Structure formats: C-alpha cells, structure tokens
C-alpha cells in the first residue's frame, strides 16, 4: 500500500541571517528537508542556535526561507498558512483581552459570526480545562493556566497542524508535566481536531515522552543530524529501561563530534576553527561548580550526562555549552554521552581561587585562539591597549554579528577571570594593566 501523501513537506530549506546592510550573512539552516504526516507528533530537538525555532516559523509561513520551499496541501506556502496554529514559549497572550476574547481572536480573523465564535471558544476553553476563567485577564492567571489559554486559542480554529515552540519550557517542572500529560491524553483519545503536531524542544526527555519521531538538528548551521523513531506505547513511563536507553542514545548522539575521524581537530564541538570558533556564554563560576560536582562523589570524575543534568537540574541548553567548553579547554572529555575529567580538570577542582585563575588562564591562552590572539596583540603593542572593535570585526568575518558579540563577551570574561588582560567596558578597550 502506498504511503499517504504527507500533510506538509519541507524541501531543502535554507535560511540566512540578514546582516544590517542587507547582504546575506551567516547560514542558520542548511538544506533541511523533512515531512509531517497525519497522526504523528514530531519533535525538533537541538540546542540553542540550531535554527529549530526558525524552522518552525518557516513551516508556519511567518518567515520566508532564503532558499527551498514548504509544500502544504499540495501548494507552496507563501504566507501564514491557514489550518496551522502555533503555541508560543512566551504564551503570547494579549494582556488587554480576557481569556474568552483571546481565544476568539483567531476566529475573528476567519470572519466567523460572533455567536458561533462564542460557542466554539467556550467549547475549546472547556476542552482545555479552563472553564471558570473565561472572563479573567492573562495577568490574573498562573503560567500553566496562561499556556492553557495558548492551547485553547490554537485549537479553536480547528487547525490541521499544531506547532509548538518550546511550549512547556517557561513553566515549572510540575506544571509542565501536568500540561504535557493533559495534552497527550487529549491527543491519544482523539479529542482534539488536529491531525499532526510539530514541536520544538531542547528537552530530551520531553521529546522522548511525547514524540513519535524525533529530528535532531546540529548547530551552526542547522542540519538534520539524525532522525529517531520512538515506538513506545502511550502513556510512556520515564523509568522504563527502554525509555532511559533512548534518552542515553540521544545524549550520545547530540554530543558526538561532527567529524570524529580527524584526531588533531579536537575542537570539533564548536562550529568554526581557530579564531573563527563561535563560543557560548558560560560563567566561570559555572565551570568551577560543574568541575567540582563531577569530581565529587557519586561521580568521582566521570558522569553520565543525563544523570548529572538531572542532579544539577540543568537543561541541555545549559549543560552542553558547559561540558563542551570544558572539553575545549582540556579540563574534560566527552564520550558516548559521558563526561570525564582530565588530570588538569581534577587538579582544578581541588585548587583555591588564585591557583584556579592561573591554571584557567594558561589553558585559555593555549586552547582558545581568540584569547591567545588578544593577549599577543596586547603584548606586542607598546601601549598595551587594543580596541575591542577590531577583534569583533575580525570575528564577524566568520560568524553573524550576534554570535561574534557572544563569543567576544565570553572570551573577555574568561580572560578577565584568568587574568590574561583587563577590559574597560565604556571605552571598549582591552589592556594589560589592571586599574589601580
């Protein structure tokens, strides 16, 4: 039997950041192709900067791709698609409209007569468990209740496809879990009018709990790194060994280096090489705390990533940058979803602050080319001063303005901690001497 035609197809979609000047910049999505069929929940999993939210907005028709196309109902998408409704991470409720009016809003755009709109809105409110709150304003509601309004507003227009942009990540753990279960119940029992759900998440467990298919995106540029089918029956149990196994696999897959074959190229976790390496913003306190945690029992220098994420209540968006920066600095190594401290990493965990600063500075100069570069320029100049602008411009040759900014800020802070150089924020100047 031939497979039914997919609801929606994404064909070789590329997306560029546009620079201020209008020219094409840094690539965010690189030839991404995927499709969405009836009756499935698909998860887009990736860390921040992998373009998953951009992809979702392209699918919604809110943003046009630089290249490639989205086929929906047999036609190329050229604008906000009818029958595609979105739920937002920030809820995106209109503060001046009551719950009922917020839900009715989408119907108004469809020119549904007022009386029918009221009827449908009340039904959706009832379905999503909001009855009694119809006349409340968003600011009177808790986060969980607000997101329920977000769901009701999306469902009331009877969409074919429900798009969800990290819908639970602004909620506390308990509320998020309740909402997920409620949504899954409605889905499994077929009580929602929707045919398919596409959700963006950076929470691995959430993806395994909810999705039938998980698409893992790599970062910078966003490419499809893997596609994993989840064949577990609903309701799924987080403690089920199969569930755990899947979570571990995904962790390993997401921390795998892009090109494991080349032995010298150990910096592969970050996009770009040498000076052009795009680095995440991580505080030096987090480095210290993380190294201490891995060095201490029960991990004793080697930790399973899902396990330590759970222990330290870190999302992968926080965990991966820390782990990978430590790997870059040769304080740790990541393999098969585990993190292992190097000898220097272990020594660091036992040192006092002054020693840590010294060791950190040494590693920074040695393994982070930008830090070495700043230090060399400062050493060579007779004034021992250099403007930050020149380094930022140099970085912008390799990456978008936004990434260049984050990278330079990170290295500045790390350099200050490692006492490699001083930095004057108002003058945007690096220098060797510290203020007296």
């Amino acid at each position: 039997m031939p497979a039914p035609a997919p609801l929606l197809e994404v064909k070789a979609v590329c997306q560029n950041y546009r620079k201020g000047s209008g020219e094409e910049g840094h690539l965010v999505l690189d030839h991404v192709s995927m499709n969405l069929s009836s009756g499935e929940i698909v998860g887009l999993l990736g860390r921040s900067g992998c373009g998953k939210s951009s992809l979702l907005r392209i699918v919604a028709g809110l943003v046009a791709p630089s290249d490639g196309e989205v086929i929906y109902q047999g036609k190329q998408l050229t604008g906000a698609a009818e029958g595609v409704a979105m739920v937002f991470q920030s809820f995106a409720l209109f503060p001046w409209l009551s719950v009922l009016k917020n839900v009715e809003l989408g119907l108004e755009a469809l020119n549904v007569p007022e009386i029918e709109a009221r009827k449908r809105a009340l039904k959706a409110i009832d379905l999503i468990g909001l009855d009694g709150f119809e006349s409340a304003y968003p600011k009177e509601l808790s986060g969980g209740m607000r997101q329920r309004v977000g769901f009701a507003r999306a469902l009331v227009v009877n969409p074919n496809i429900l798009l969800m942009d990290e819908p639970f990540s602004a909620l506390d753990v308990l509320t998020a879990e309740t909402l997920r279960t409620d949504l899954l119940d409605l889905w499994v029992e077929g009580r929602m009018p929707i045919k398919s759900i596409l959700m963006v998440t950076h929470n691995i467990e959430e993806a395994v709990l909810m999705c039938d298919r998980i698409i893992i995106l790599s970062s910078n540029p966003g490419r499809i790194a893997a596609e994993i089918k989840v064949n577990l029956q609903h309701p799924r149990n987080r403690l089920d060994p199969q569930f755990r196994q899947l979570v571990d696999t995904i962790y390993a897959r997401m921390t795998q280096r892009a090109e494991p074959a080349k032995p010298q190229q150990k910096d592969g976790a970050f996009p770009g090489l040498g000076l052009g390496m795009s680095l995440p913003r991580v505080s030096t306190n987090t480095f210290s705390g993380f190294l201490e945690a891995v060095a201490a029992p029960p991990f004793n220098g080697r930790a399973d990533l899902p396990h330590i994420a759970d222990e330290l209540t870190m999302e992968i968006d926080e965990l991966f940058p820390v782990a990978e920066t430590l790997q870059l600095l040769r304080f740790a190594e990541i393999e098969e979803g585990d993190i292992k401290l190097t000898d220097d990493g272990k020594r660091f965990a036992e040192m006092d602050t002054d020693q840590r600063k010294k060791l950190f500075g040494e590693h920074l100069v040695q393994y982070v080319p930008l830090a070495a570069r700043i230090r060399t320029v400062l050493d060579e100049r007779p004034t021992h001063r250099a403007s930050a602008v020149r380094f930022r411009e140099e970085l912008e040759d390799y990456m978008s303005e936004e990434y260049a900014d984050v990278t330079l800020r990170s290295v500045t802070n790390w350099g200050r901690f490692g006492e490699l150089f001083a930095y004057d924020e108002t003058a945007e100047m690096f220098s060797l001497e510290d203020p007296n």
Partner: protein
Amino acid sequence: MNLKFPEIPVIHRQSLPNIWDAIALALIIGLFVAIAHGAHGVNAPLKALDATPINLDYTFLPYYAMRTTLRMFAALFFSFVFTFTYATLAAKSRRAEMVMIPILDVLQSVPVLGFLSFTVTFFLNLFPGSVLGAECAAVFAIFTSQAWNMAFSFYQSLSTVPKDLDEVARGFRLSAWQKFWRLETPYAMPSLVWNTMMSMSGGWFFIVASEAITVGETTVKLPGIGSYIAVAIDEKNVQAIIYASLMMLIVILLYDQLLFRPVVAWAAKFRVELSAGQTVERSWVLNMFQRTRWIKIAFSPVGWLARQFARPRLQFLPAKAPTLTTSPAVSRMFDYLFFAALAVITGYSIWQIYLFVSQSLNMSDVWETFSVTLLTMIRVVVLIFLATAFWVPVGVWIGLRPHIAEKVQPVAQFLAAYPANILFPIFVIVILKFSLNPDIWLSLLIIFGTQWYIVFNVIAGASAFPNDLKEAAANFRIHGWSWWKNVMLPGVFPYYFTGALTASGGSWNAAIVAEYVKWGDDKVVAHGIGAYIAQATEAGNYPKIVLGVAMMSLFVILFNRLFWRPLFGLAERKLRLN
C-alpha cells in the same frame, strides 16, 4: 458582516438603577448641555465678535472657559487623527519613515508659537469674514503643541510591538485593519495616553496665547479665557486676572479628575506586563461608571459598535504575500530615486526661504538674531540649572517620604499642566513697581511653568529608588556628599533627565511669551529671541518672524542633539536600575 442587534447583557436581579447611575447620568447630560452651549457661535460672522466684546464680568468666565475647553478638545481630536495616520504610515513604510520621523523630530523642537501669525493669516483667508477662520487658527495652534509627541509615541509603540504577539496576529492571518485595532493600538495605548496628558498641558499654555491675536493690523479676540486675560491686561484689571487664574484652576482640576484620571486608570489594562502592576492607578470616576448598572447597559451598544468597527477584515491594500520581497537591486534603485527627489525638494525649499528672507533682511539681521538667541539660550540654561539645584534636593527629600510624596505628586503634576502665562501680568506689575531689570526678572517666567516637570520626575525617581539600595547605603553608613554622589543622584538621574528635557523644550516656547510682556500700555521687554519674534509679530514683519523662528529652531535642535540626547543616552545606558 453579521448585523444582528447586539445582545443585551442579561439583566440580573440587581437591575434597579443605583446611586452611581444617578451621578453618572447627571454628568453625562451636563456634558451634552455644555457642548451644545459652547459650540453655539463658532460659525458666526467675524463682525459679531466686535459686536460682543469680551466682558470682564466674572459671571461670563464659565462660558469663556467652556469655549476654551471645546477648542482644546477639537484640537485633541485632530491630534488623534494625525497620530493614527502619520505615525502609522511612518511605521509601515520604510521610505516614508526615513523622511517622516526626522520631520516629526524637528517639528517637536520648533517653537510653533512663533508661527502663529502665519497660521492665523492662512485660516482667516480660508474662511473670509467668519469666526470659523480664527477658531481654526486657534485650534491649529493647539494642535501643533499636541500632535508631535503623540505621533512620536505612537510610532515608537508601533515599531516595538512584541514579536510573539505580532506572530500570533500574523499566524491567525488578521487583516491589517484587524491587527491595527486588536494589537497595535491597544499596545500603544498606555504611552499614548501619557503623552496626550503631557500634550494637554502644553495645549493650555498655547490656547491662552492664541485666542487673542494681533498680527499687524488684524486683531481677533475669540471668546475664551485667553481673550479674557488679554482684555484684562489691556484694561489693567488685576481682579479679572485673578478670577481668570482661579477659573483655569477649576477647569484643569475638572478635566484632570473627570477625564484623564479615568482614562489613565483604564489604559493600565493595556500594559504588556504579565505580573500584576505595582502601582495601581485609581480614579473615582472610572470606578463610579464601572459600578453603574443602567448606564452601563445603556452604553453597551456603543461597545458593540466599537467591536463591529474593529472586526471586519477591511483591506485597503491588496494583501501582499509576506514572503515575496523585491530584489535588493531594484529596491536600492528606488531608494536612489527617492533620495534624489528628496534632495531636490529640500534644496528648493531652502532657496525659497532664502529668497523670502533676503528680500528685506541682510547679514546683520542674521547676526542680530544669532546673538539674541544666544542670550535666550543662556537664560534657559541658567534657569534649568537653578531649578535643578533647587528642586532635585527638594524632590528627593519628598520622594523618599512616601506619605508626603503621595500628596505632593498630584500637585506638582497639576502645576505642570497649569498655563503659567496666565500669571505673567502679576509678575509684570511687580517688575514695574520695583523697576527691576527685565533681562533678569523676566527670565524667571521662562522656567515658571516648566520647572514642575523636573519636580515630579525627581519625586517619581526618588520614590522608585530600590529599598535594598537605600538599606545598603544606610548599613554601610554612607552619608553626606558621598550619599548624594554615589547613591541618590545616579538613581534619580534617568528620571531627572526626562523631566529636564521636557522642561527645556517648554522653556524655549515660553520664551516667546515671557520675554515680551505687556500691562496696559506698559511694556516690559528682555533681550532675547522670544522678544524679537513677539515684536516682529506685532509689527507684522514676516521675514523677521521667519528668520527668528528658523534661528530659534536651529538652536533648539542643536541644543537637543548635542546636549540632551547624549546625556540622556548616557543615563539610559549606565544608570538604569533595571
């Protein structure tokens, strides 16, 4: 569109009208009567004005106040129309934005009072022989004092609509019309209401100056408080001046309590902050209307009509596919054409101004205006400085004591709204009596009405100063100058700048009426660009007016760009506490 009759809200058992209904009804009917009474006579022939000269009997004052207020609201109406069209166009079209926003910025700094003579002549010619022309001129003068900052705030709101709400609107495919009423206007509401309030304060100042106008040989005195004062000045009637200032006090109090408090309290619901607000705006009038039963039901068709107005998918332009963008090359070519056209128009206007001014004026006139403008600038700077030195410590002292601030704050806001030019004659009497130096003592008038902006902003800043920082300062025993320098001044500076910027702008405008004041036949004149423009207006010397206003505008713009803006940016960057 569904045109069924609106559903009447179900009337529950509490259906009897209550006391609030009675009060509200009285207010509403009173309003209608007042409008009907006040509007009568707007269309009369110009000669009728001479037949019924301004009567200084105080029993006429309520009627004059009514006329003045109506003019005010007429101007406000046009300001809203202007705001919704001009600002929307600027926000939606990139090319329009490039020209319209700088124009708005300049208009904001131009002392429009100086152009009064031009607009009066224009409108009198537009409706020859009818009072309507003079009315239009007065309304237009007020309009020019209100519209710019309202449009500016609306434009700023439109360009900062939260991204996620915009995506919801686009995702649901709301038409541009629906999006405007459902998202953009509500989002802009709180700041628009605040700016409208500020505009009204400026408007009162202008109305007093614009009702009684003498341009060359034409003298028009529209019935209103402004003309009443003008006549009182001509007749040296101190008592009438006092009556007029008391009347103004009552008018401003009424419009504040009956109109703006309720609107501000109502607009609070449009604030995009999902946590419940810290400061709750209250208004007894709004509360009262929300507690009425019958009045509320009677007004429900109005609410229904408003909803129908915002509902339809009106589409004035064909819906453009948002994904389709013209190629950069074509777009850039249009840009070049656009800029070329702009350059030609600008060059032509400068040439025209030059021709007009150079007919009767030469370089020595330019030099003269330059030097008198410099004098006025020194005046403004010195007075802002004095007001700062006095009011910042006082404002901080008040702001740190919540129960005092609570009482003083409304008074300061009220004083800022009060048109200080009503009180100018009283100063003049004093100056004449003691033969004081007008160059020094008239200067006080410049800051007289505008210093309150500094006061209430500093009070607001000190009240908002974080308690933990206050406690930390006390805990580390930070006293004296160190406390001011390191703790309090940086904390209130962003607020202070907002106030000082407004005060500075207002002071330039005030200079036009403050440097040249009359009392009967006596004139008190200070050296300055304000006096220069006022005298040129009286003499009907148009080239001199143009030159004076142009020079003053240039100074104001440079003053703002080179002094206030950088300072303001600094305060925003370094001293914001959140």
